[in-house]
């Protein structure tokens, strides 16, 4: 035990099992937060091994360091400025060439490196075997084969990473060389950078390559220190372009890839294999008929599962909690009791809504996500999403929205540009979350019929599509096309699924719970003080005249701002009866559910929007929700009067 504190970072492409490795290394000692000032998730944990404590940082899954995304920027800044003692580069054995492209960039950064050659079982199923010894010799860094999903090789990996971090391993890192024309210029520029002796944070060789590539961030930071290096780099880049007749960035990418390709060819042996089960499943999931059917069955199944399990668990839980106190909204009595009842109701709602409905939803969704099915769904629906200025990947946060809008809005980070994030978040606020589903079930399915409840869901999709198209014209900026790696299907890893479920549930607990509790108490308190009474009358032109609803719904909509499902729950004490059909017509039930479905996002969702996008977009989205709810609600009220 040296007492030295170690930091080890995990880096690599997306979907190569980095998270599984991270879970193995850190066990339950994890914290998930954001990178300072960036909307990128940062996962950190502690490894206790052989008397050492090491902080493990799970860097985002990326393919390159071109600052095409925030993830790439965060990763390279972390490596340069926080200088971990070692980096474990997790690479997928079945997609060696693509993964080595990233490895070669890490080698140019000159940081202590260990390669974790993961998923060798997947490679084997594709007929690929890899000579790790040879790979180790070529790259000059330790290569440790693992099957993380079954915990194979983890012990060796930890040992290897610690050895490298503690400098025990004999380092003879080979920077894999480029072609002559490029290499001589890189070396010259590296020399020029080193002679100026300024501390960039980045390795000189890596900075030299980035200067030649024309990386604006690196140029800026070098320029602030030495104009002469910039002046040296520009003619060099021009020379390379003249020699290769291609832009310098393309030359570097081409040469790196051809090295990666050469190394992959040298170390791997490919045998012919028959189409695997995964291949056949892939064919099915992207078929022009079965593909959409699969997508439909998966999403409908997910929702069905959520509400079947949720209903059962929720009943059980509220039964348990009702031993303590009634959680039904209480609107008369002493003020203290009412506030307490509001707060307690918030807790109960949180417990009976989040745990039974949302957790099973997230759990199954995470499993579907990890299996690779959602990638196929994104592939199949890209073209629909494109019409809303989004691309296929947006389908993932949108499905997430059916659980709760809050983590779904954070999930919009998978999109490339701010415009796409904003458009996706806008669409999500119209997706009926569990709380809104409870309204639809409690008002329409229970007192009208199930067909109308399902129709509301279908109409909602049409509305989302139509409003998405309108938003596309209003929101300035660019949209990017879909560029996504298609991973083979696999059996989901329990540890990854559990971690993902927890990460999403956590954002609910920390954001939604307090608002439920405090908001519930405040609104009920205000109501009992009679301060909210005038609202009913003030809103009556909208609620009564335009929407054709009873006067008391004005107050319900205020309650709904805090907790959507309060719209149904508070109806019981307000009406003094649980059989709504005695007081509300079928049209009124449907209109109320419809308006609640579209109506202004709950406070928790609004605060998530503010966090991700700022006040103005959050306000604009909320207004759009409110206006469309009132407008469409009124129209549907008129139409429904004709139908019933």
């Amino acid at each position, binding site marked *: 035990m040296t007492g030295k504190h170690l930091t080890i970072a995990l880096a690599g492409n997306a979907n190569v099992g980095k998270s599984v490795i991270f879970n193995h290394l850190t066990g339950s000692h994890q914290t998930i937060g954001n990178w300072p000032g960036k909307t990128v998730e940062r996962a950190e944990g502690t490894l206790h091994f052989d008397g050492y404590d090491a902080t493990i940082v799970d860097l985002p899954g990326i393919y390159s360091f071109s600052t095409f995304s925030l993830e790439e920027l965060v990763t390279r800044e972390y490596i340069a400025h926080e200088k971990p003692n070692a980096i474990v580069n997790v690479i997928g054995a079945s997609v060696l060439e693509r993964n080595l492209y990233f490895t070669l960039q890490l080698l140019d950064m000159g940081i202590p490196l260990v390669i974790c050659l993961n998923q060798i079982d997947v490679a084997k199923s594709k007929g690929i075997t890899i000579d790790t010894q040879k790979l180790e010799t070529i790259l000059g860094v330790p290569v440790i084969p693992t099957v993380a999903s079954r915990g194979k090789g983890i012990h060796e990996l930890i040992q290897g990473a610690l050895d490298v971090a503690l400098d025990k391993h004999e380092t003879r890192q080979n920077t894999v060389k480029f072609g002559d024309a490029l290499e001589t210029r890189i070396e010259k520029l590296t020399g020029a950078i080193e002679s100026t002796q300024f501390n960039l944070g980045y390795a000189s060789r890596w900075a030299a390559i980035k200067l030649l590539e024309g990386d604006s961030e690196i140029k800026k930071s070098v320029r602030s220190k030495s104009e002469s290096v910039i002046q040296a780099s520009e003619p060099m880049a021009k020379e390379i372009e003249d020699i290769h007749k*291609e832009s310098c*960035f393309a030359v570097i990418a081409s040469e790196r890839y051809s090295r990666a390709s050469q190394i992959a060819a040298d170390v791997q042996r490919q045998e012919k294999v028959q189409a695997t089960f995964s291949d056949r499943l892939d064919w099915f999931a*992207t078929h022009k008929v079965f593909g959409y059917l699969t997508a439909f069955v998966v999403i409908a199944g997910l929702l069905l599962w959520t509400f079947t399990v949720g209903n059962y668990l929720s009943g059980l839980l509220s039964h348990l909690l009702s031993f303590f106190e009634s959680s039904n909204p209480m609107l008369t009595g002493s003020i203290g009791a009412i506030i307490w009842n509001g707060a307690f109701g918030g807790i109960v709602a949180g417990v009976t809504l989040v745990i039974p409905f949302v957790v099973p939803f997230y759990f199954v969704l995470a499993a579907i996500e990890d299996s690779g099915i959602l990638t196929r769904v994104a592939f199949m629906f890209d073209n629909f999403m494109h019409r809303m200025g989004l691309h*296929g990947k947006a389908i993932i946060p949108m499905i997430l929205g059916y659980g709760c809008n809050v983590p779904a809005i954070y999930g919009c980070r998978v999109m490339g540009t701010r415009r796409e994030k904003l458009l996706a978040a806008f669409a999500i606020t119209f997706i009926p979350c569990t709380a809104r589903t409870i309204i639809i079930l409690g008002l329409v399915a229970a007192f009208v019929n199930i067909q109308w409840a399902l129709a509301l869901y279908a109409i909602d999709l049409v509305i989302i599509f139509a409003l998405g198209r309108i938003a596309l014209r209003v929101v300035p900026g660019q949209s990017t*096309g*879909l*560029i996504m790696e298609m991973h083979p299907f696999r059996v989901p890893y329990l540890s990854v699924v559990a971690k993902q479920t927890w990460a999403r549930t956590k954002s609910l607990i920390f954001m939604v719970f307090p608002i439920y509790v405090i908001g519930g108490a405040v609104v009920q308190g205000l109501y009992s003080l009679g301060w909210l009474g005038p609202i009913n009358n003030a809103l009556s032109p909208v609620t009564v005249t335009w929407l054709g609803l009873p006067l008391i719904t004005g107050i319900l909509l205020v309650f709904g701002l805090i907790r959507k499902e309060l719209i149904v729950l508070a109806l019981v004490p307000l009406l003094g009866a649980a059989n709504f059909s005695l007081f509300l017509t079928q049209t009124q039930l449907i209109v109320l559910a419809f308006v609640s479905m579209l109506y202004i996002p709950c406070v928790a969702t609004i605060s998530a929007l503010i966090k991700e996008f700022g006040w103005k977009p959050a306000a604009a989205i909320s207004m759009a929700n409110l206006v469309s709810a009132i407008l469409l609600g009124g129209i549907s009220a008129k139409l429904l009067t004709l139908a019933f």
Partner: protein
Amino acid sequence: MSKSTEEYLEALYTLTKGGETASTSAISKRLSVAPASVTEMLGKLSDDGYVNYQPYQGVTLTPKGFKMAEKMARKHRLLERFLHDMLGIGKDRVHAEACAMEHALSDETARALCQTLKHPDTCPDDGNPIPPCDLRFSSCEECQKWGGESLEKVGRREASVVSMSTLKEREEGKIAFIRGDSKVLRRLLDMGLTPGTKIRIARIAPLQGPVEIAVRGSKLALGEEVACNVFVEVAGAQVRLKTRHVTP
């Protein structure tokens, strides 16, 4: 080459879209010329090696004719973009205007127009794709950087390149040219689509959705709007055109 030759080739380019043969009557209708003159002109074009023409069996373009026709279509559609985007001329009028201007447009000016318009990919009136230029550039960025030097030094492509979104499942090709801004280009290069890389179409999503390609031992999905700007060399490339839906 005469103006009327260019007009004929351009008409054939549109009429033989997707590999069909064009009939004499269709050509006569499109160009508002008497069928007898069409027959005469086709004979001349056939003698010059631009078309395959057998009386009563319809016409197709030869590779030489196709290359020429593609170039004309490119100039025509670039001009339409210019008239519409820069001069604000209505969609219904750009076609006729462009028809009159295209014959006087030099290759150098067409390139300058393409750069100024930020390498557009579709024409404004019917959303048809603008064919890529035949200069030996592998990206628009490269063309941009080339500056004012003589285009003869760049060289020209021998075979036409085809858009990835026109390929069918299991077809193979080599990356030749990527159209678009440098951000998308860099991302594609980072994903391994460097010039000369072999790709195979693994799957095409229904309803003009994305294509899935096998490249560098892995699979990659590219949205239609990305794929249509990636051009590949295909062994025995044929006349291949597809109308892309117009996207807002």
